[in-house]
């Protein structure tokens, strides 16, 4: 398969970037999008040019590292996939593909398609944990948890922190990410103890990092590779209101 690629190239955080055209041929339809990028980079290196910097790690859709805004959407045209799970057979031969970094002031560009998502880490550092004194491993059923709540907490915890929600949102809001992280603790008895401090700290940090507000357009949920539900944002809001006034 042959593709015309338009890729955002930017030397570093300060430099001005621009779209650069590349043509790539002999691409196997069953290559993943990242493998196509690998082939392109090998060609660029052979020609003595700078390879395109992009984030990747596990390449099986669980680490959240691969980003990229592909043909106008985070992680490309498919629903519920990361970029590593996107295959070239999902494109047509000869297609022009736009490849850009995730755009948000809270996610500054490091180089080319690599953005700094440590704003998410800082939000987690102020409350995305449960304080437990170490000691003996306790009995598995010591704390009863309702199955339905456990399932919802697991759904929320499936967020991989990739940032597609921010990239898709017109306000660059991190509400889906923060909502999921708050929910995964708020739903469980272990998380209830620090629930109030957690939601206030994480919501304040989210604002401090420069993410926008949620206008409920639903773009985040539609683009989330893990299908995190908007109900997590509603839960975050409920938690926040009750923590604020109590």
């Amino acid at each position, binding site marked *: 398969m042959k593709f015309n690629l338009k890729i955002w190239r930017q030397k570093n955080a300060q430099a001005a970037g621009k779209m650069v055209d590349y043509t790539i041929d002999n691409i196997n339809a069953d290559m993943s999008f990242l493998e196509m990028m690998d082939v392109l980079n090998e060609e660029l290196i052979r020609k003595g040019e700078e390879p395109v910097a992009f984030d990747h790690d596990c390449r099986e859709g669980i680490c959240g590292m691969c980003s990229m805004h592909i043909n106008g959407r985070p992680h490309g045209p498919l629903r519920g996939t990361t970029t590593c799970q996107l295959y070239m057979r999902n494109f047509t031969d000869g297609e022009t593909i736009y490849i850009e970094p995730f755009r948000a002031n809270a996610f500054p560009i490091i180089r080319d398609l690599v953005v700094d998502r440590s704003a998410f880490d800082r939000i987690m550092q102020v409350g995305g944990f449960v304080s437990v004194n170490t000691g003996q491993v306790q009995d598995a059923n010591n704390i009863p948890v309702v199955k339905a709540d456990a399932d919802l907490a697991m759904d929320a915890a499936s967020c991989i922190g990739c940032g597609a929600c921010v990239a898709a949102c017109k306000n660059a809001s991190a509400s889906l990410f923060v909502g999921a992280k708050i929910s995964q603790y708020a739903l469980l008895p272990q998380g209830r103890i620090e629930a109030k*401090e957690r939601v*206030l700290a994480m919501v304040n940090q989210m604002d401090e990092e420069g993410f926008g507000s949620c206008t409920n357009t639903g773009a985040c949920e539609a683009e989330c590779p893990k299908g995190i539900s908007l109900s997590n*944002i509603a839960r975050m*809001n409920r938690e926040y209101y009750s923590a604020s006034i109590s």
Partner: protein
Amino acid sequence: MSKKSTHNGLFSTLIGKKMLMGVTGIFLITFLVVHCAINSLIFFNDGGELFNEGAKFMGTNVLIRIMEVVLFLGIIAHIVDALLLTLANNKTRSTGYQYQKPNANSKWYSRWMGLLGTLILMFLIVHLKDFWVPSRFTDHIAHSELEKLPGQETLFEEMKEVFENPLIVILYVASMVSLAYHLLHGFQSAFQTMGWNHPKYTPIIQKTGFWFSIIIPILFALMPIVMHLGIIK
């Protein structure tokens, strides 16, 4: 949790400001119900008798007059809060995408609430000038046919007069289209922002919101049309 949060109150964060949008939005929705119900009395086609009765009640009842002030405060809060949020949101992405497919993941009217709201505000100014100002600040409007002094009109007659102008009718109808789309997103969005998301009740809220957003603006839009065409006399 070792780190004590520095929280400056409910409205200090964007979520708090969004809550104010939701509360005022739902309040304005309840106003639409009352306004639409009273105005729909013209559809009885009784020469405006019932409608003028309703208008008299709305114009003289103490509780309603107090709510009128609350309503204006609600509208102002909704507008100012929207401006604050929009200003904050405009600062979140200095460099945009070269190529974007926003329709792939969201509805256009959910992204253009600010524009739809501005159109509604512009309509509101014309609308208040047409009816609210003459009935509150001049002696031009009488409460009923019986109380009419020379040179006075009832509110029903004022409606007929205003809607003689086809341009006004077009403006009113077009504005109701803006209102419909604003509500189509806003109704269910307000509930979501308030945190009222529930597997059983959210689908009911969404269906109610959908029909509300269609029925109320259609009823409002019909009023200038039927009066202009002389169907309601």
